[in-house]
């Protein structure tokens, strides 16, 4: 699962902590999502999409073989 969260954060100029607070998780969880170690639930992904005002598919992408 690839994600563009880090890029979106840079575009919107918010820190991991700010994003974390916006969607109700810890900063470290944002870190694990960005580094691809953890796949968030649908609800969390939708919340992120709402924060960045982008569709979910622009934030997350299935990789070959998944």
């Amino acid at each position, binding site marked *: 699962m690839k994600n563009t969260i880090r890029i979106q954060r840079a575009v919107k100029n918010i820190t*991991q*902590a700010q994003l974390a607070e916006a969607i*109700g*998780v810890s900063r*470290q*969880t944002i*870190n694990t999502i960005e580094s691809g170690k*953890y796949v968030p639930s649908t609800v969390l992904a939708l919340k992120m999409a709402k924060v960045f005002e982008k569709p979910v598919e622009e934030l997350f992408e299935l990789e070959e073989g998944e």
Partner: protein
Amino acid sequence: MKTKLLFPRKFKYVGLVISAIFIVMGIYNMYFTFTLEIYTPFEVEGLLGSSSPNELTDEILGAGLIIGLMMLAFSKEKIEDEFVGKMRLESLLWAVYVNYILLILTFFFVYGNPFLDVIIYNMYTILIFFIGRFNFLMYRHLQTPEID
């Protein structure tokens, strides 16, 4: 993770104190004569047998340690999100595996009175393994550096 099944955060520290006290008393009670001198005014028939405890030290230590460990194990973290829930579930699974593998080993390699001691410890090791594993994973998780 349905957080209504978890204790409030403060219970973790209460549980830690209770567990520490009861572990020390419990281990001492296993190997030396030890009594809290709490007597029941009556004798009770056991549910599965006829022995009736009159002095409640064993019962209080046994139950007290379970309660203390459960409070320590199942209190909420500072921030409860889905990642923490996943860590908790995986730690529980890990603890069950480790506990039963060790138990099988003791079946084959420990006999007699020491075996009974191991079985007594085994009542608590699943919680202890979970506490160790979960807190280790959480510590590692909380140490991840900020990337901006």
